[in-house]
């Protein structure tokens, strides 16, 4: 389905995750973050870049990965993206949320 984000039609799934990573940019990101009541800071962008890098390499995302990333510690990660940090950070990063096979 299509969703209007910063006056552009963006392809998203039922939960609001981007379907096409190439439609992502910082403006889109800030708008989605706003819907999650998050104001982006430099630290947020660092985390977003780390997540996008993992996605492009097709490596699984986990809290352990965040812990070992050297980008941020887990308490900070929860503070930056309160309540389900991985699912919110992936949505803002324009990549699919971590999931299982069903």
């Amino acid at each position: 389905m299509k969703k209007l984000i910063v006056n552009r039609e963006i392809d998203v799934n039922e939960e609001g995750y981007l379907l096409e990573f190439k439609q992502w940019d910082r403006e889109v990101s800030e708008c989605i973050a706003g819907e999650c009541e998050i104001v982006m800071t430099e630290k947020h962008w660092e985390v977003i870049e780390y997540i996008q890098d993992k996605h492009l390499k097709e490596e699984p995302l986990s809290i352990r990965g965040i812990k070992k990333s050297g980008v941020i510690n887990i308490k900070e990660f929860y503070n930056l993206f309160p309540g389900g940090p991985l699912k919110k950070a992936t949505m803002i990063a324009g990549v699919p949320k971590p999931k299982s096979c069903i």
Partner: protein
Amino acid sequence: MKRLVILGAGTSGTMMANHLVSKLPKKEWSITIIDQYKTHYYQPGFLFLPFDVYTTKQVKKNGKKFIPKEVDYIQQKIDLIKPEDSKVILENGDEISYTILIIATGTKIAPDETEGMHGPKWYKNIFDFYTFEGAKSLRNKLREWQGGKLVVHITEMPIKCPVAPLEFAFLADSYFKNKGMRDKVEITFVTPLDGAFTKPKATKALHYLLEEKKIKEVTDFNIERVDYENNKIIDYADTEVEYDLLVTVPTNMGDELIERSGMGDDLNFVPTNKTTLQTENYDNIFAIGDATNLPASKAGSVAHFEAEILTENILRYINGEPLKEEFDGHANCFIETGNGKALLIDFNYSHEPVEGTFPFPGVGPLKLLKESRTNHMGKMAFRWIYWNMLIKGIHIPFVSATMSEKGKKLEEVNE
């Protein structure tokens, strides 16, 4: 003489030995398989062992029976892979040179990765069911358990057989109903993901199962530690879940051999090309099954489909031909839902599980993403297929290595 060496005689390694023994010219090639353990376990059976559905004898056999006679089977612990020298070093100091290496060392649970998990209460009121010892100890515990809070928990992804924890919760519901004590047991499913079901189609089709079986869901739970003194698990957001009996799936990691050899990622999985199964760093090393870092499910069916494609790619590699980029992440899994019913799912890298029929389009007899007794019969029959066909490398009729899109309702799929 050239030598092909397989590390690990589990599901993947045994299948590869059986596939390759008839394909490699015997005058030029010898095949060696190395594994420290004597027993070959039917791992899908670990789900049933705790509920007394299978006996211990039904899930284990002597591994040697399944390795072809022409294959040299070494029962030794592997100390190191030296990829630069194309050598494997065994614990007893023996060095084995290879022309081609296949890594099939699987994945293991790593309960030490979570504080308090592998402590004084391990196998007292904290259990795994991903090992023979864990499943058997849990069976003994369940036989005498008087009820209380049962928490079924996933530590972190990726895990082997990602649906097994959910199946465990479904089977527990049936088990306690049959024992006439369901009202004494509270079942909670705790996951780091955002639901017990994480894909839109499956959530829509299957969420009723949780409601019907009165299984509570705790989602987005990233465990920090187990407080074994007070019987609760605590996550990084300080959410607490109390348990009387904790059935957990600990962190899954590749074999320590991979770490010792400096060949793995953070979780000791081997970086592997997801379509050819050649490792990313060494042309003459291939990897298969749970040992790889492929973004596919870690499951026997995936290994089975990979084995058919890897066999062909090994032959192509030997002949100097380009490798086939054919593996599509195909998985095909029965999911027990309790009360003698099961679901069947069929999916790959790009398609989520959908409704339809299998293996014959429009006919079945198995139905995809729907509960049925026939699917349960399929799962039960699978144990026979595993021991008699699958690990012997015998092709299972009508089931292809790549996913068929026929007979499936794929039109609405979007990820």
